[in-house]
């Protein structure tokens, strides 16, 4: 396995100060709990799971974007380059900005409007990137931006537009173009198409996929939509309540989900052309301010055993490349 980034026992969440009546009250949202995972070179890795399970938080932590109230509680993220290892979790924001962000790892946040300054023309977003990171003059940068826009298959007139003048799909393609500009090793995309219709979604995802194929880098896609993982990702991790519960090849997980939560998610998916009765899950995901004891899925799990509410199951390799954190899977064999 050719690993480009690894997270080891990564934990983090939001430390909130609640204004109580008298004493100061600290509340911790346990959004990412003991997550270990490895990203390979030249792959599309998916992070799946329902809203609020910690996908965006995990992605931010991998990027090293620790803005308050988000804090790192433990564990580490290491970026592995040909010249050695870069410990993301111990770099200052300044160092990350200089050495890692955009150049080595780029990040597309959940809302593209968070990347594009609404008062700045698209053209100037590109020019700024070139002048800051590639030390070009403004004129050189502009010429380069025009060439680049053509290459990415975007119409040239987007350059003179302001972000709000573009359709959601076009804006997202611009953000993707920006994120790929400096040829990063890793691209982290958080729900890159959740605001888009299926057809625009496909156009945007195809752009990401083609770029990955060409650059042979690592693309991480966070999406709550399992369908997207089904058509895009090579491997995926499924998250539930701050934990990764299963990791494996996407096709294998869909064919034979091992964790009861993965199973429930996949079983609940309606498919065009298949009228078979589907069943969902009872209950609802826990409040991460007070996650359940033991396995966090146990209150909703149809297979729960006494141990499940007592001790959290560890991630276990079931077969090469396939990891599951579940007592049921650990007992069998």
């Amino acid at each position, binding site marked *: 396995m050719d690993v480009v980034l690894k997270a080891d026992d990564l934990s983090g969440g939001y430390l909130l100060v609640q204004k109580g009546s008298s004493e100061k009250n600290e509340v911790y949202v346990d959004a990412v709990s003991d997550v270990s995972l490895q990203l390979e070179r030249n792959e599309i890795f998916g992070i799946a799971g329902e*809203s609020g399970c910690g996908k965006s938080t995990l992605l931010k932590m991998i990027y090293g974007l620790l803005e308050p109230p988000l804090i790192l509680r433990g564990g580490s993220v290491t970026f592995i380059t040909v010249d050695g290892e870069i410990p993301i979790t111990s770099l200052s924001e300044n160092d990350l900005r200089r050495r890692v962000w955009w150049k080595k790892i780029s990040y597309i946040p959940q809302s593209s409007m968070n990347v594009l300054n609404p008062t700045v023309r698209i053209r100037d977003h590109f020019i700024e990137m070139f002048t800051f990171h590639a030390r070009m003059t403004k004129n050189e940068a502009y010429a380069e931006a025009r060439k680049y826009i053509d290459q990415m298959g975007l119409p040239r007139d987007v350059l003179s537009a302001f972000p709000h003048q573009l359709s959601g799909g076009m804006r997202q393609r611009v953000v993707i173009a920006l994120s790929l500009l400096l040829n990063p090793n890793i691209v982290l995309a958080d729900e890159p198409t959740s605001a888009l219709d299926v057809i625009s979604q496909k156009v945007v995802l195809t752009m990401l996929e083609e770029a990955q194929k060409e650059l042979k880098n690592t693309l991480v896609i966070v999406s709550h939509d399992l369908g997207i993982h*089904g058509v895009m990702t090579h491997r995926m991790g499924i998250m539930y309540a701050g934990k990764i519960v299963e990791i494996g090849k996407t096709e294998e997980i869909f064919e034979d989900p091992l964790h009861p939560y993965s199973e429930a998610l996949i079983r609940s*998916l309606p498919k065009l052309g298949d009228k078979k009765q589907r069943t969902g899950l009872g209950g609802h995901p826990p409040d991460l301010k007070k996650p359940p004891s033991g396995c966090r899925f146990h209150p909703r799990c149809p297979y729960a055993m006494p141990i499940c509410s007592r001790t959290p199951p560890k991630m276990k390799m079931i077969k090469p490349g396939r990891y599951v954190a579940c007592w049921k899977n650990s007992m069998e064999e």
Partner: protein
Amino acid sequence: MSEENLLQVEDVSKIYGYGFLGRVKFPAVDHVTLSMENKPKIFTIAGESGCGKTTLARMMLGMVKPTAGTILYRGKNVHNLKSKDRTWFLREVQAIFQDPFDTFNPLKRVDTYLYETASNLLKLKNDEEIRGKIEEALRFTGLSLEEITGKYPNEFSGGQIQRVSIARALLPKPRLIVADEPVSMVDASIRINILNMFKALLTKTGTSFIYITHDLATAYYISDEIAIMYRGMIVEIGPAEKVLLKRHHPYTQALVKSLPEPGKKEEWKTRVNAPGMEIKEFLSPGCKYADICPHKTERCVKEKPPLFEIGDVKVACWLYE
């Protein structure tokens, strides 16, 4: 005849103003005709955002007045109801919206709201009776009065509050529920429970549904009939099975091809064109899909295709003349 139909939408259009000053007028809903028999059925209106689904739904609910055309509910014009009929209509037809938090007043306890709705809509005075009706409705959605009592909307998860809003809609035992994207903000594992609930209501209480969605997979799962809309017009309408599996209209084809589904990697990879400019397409005198249609001819740009019949499916495309 129309009186036998549960719902009859006849050549309905809604013109809106576009942009900042709204000087450019465009048809958000453009000559739509459809009907629902008076039998328990789920009729789906599907299409991408901005195609006019919500506008059409609001017209059906009597909340937005059509610019042209009429909507009859069991023979009565929903935009011209006398006071007695109005009360009757408000009980017979209920709505469920995409964002369940819109249904509730954030400052009012959810159970209080249900009590008020029950006593207003059902004209009940007796507390015991009201409580009984509320419990019955909640039970159907898998909730209990106990669970929701004393809580404000923000104390519920999205899936839970949508179930409460469904319970609210069930209170007057409606004959028709218009559900506008009821599950698009709900998590996948819970989404299917709500859809199953609709199916159960259909068989147990005979309630019909207008299910509005942008998601063809859920549409296939629950609908009997479906209309696919693009830029205000119906491009294809008929039995859901045939519309979604035979796919006559090039737009229906593009939609289905773009649907990401596990195991359909290869099919999904085939190229489709990105949608064109919204206002330009809305104002086109011809087929509104022509701009990006792979089968476009000169005629498509100039002349709007009528609905051509292919068996029991109708398709608005010159390919099927």
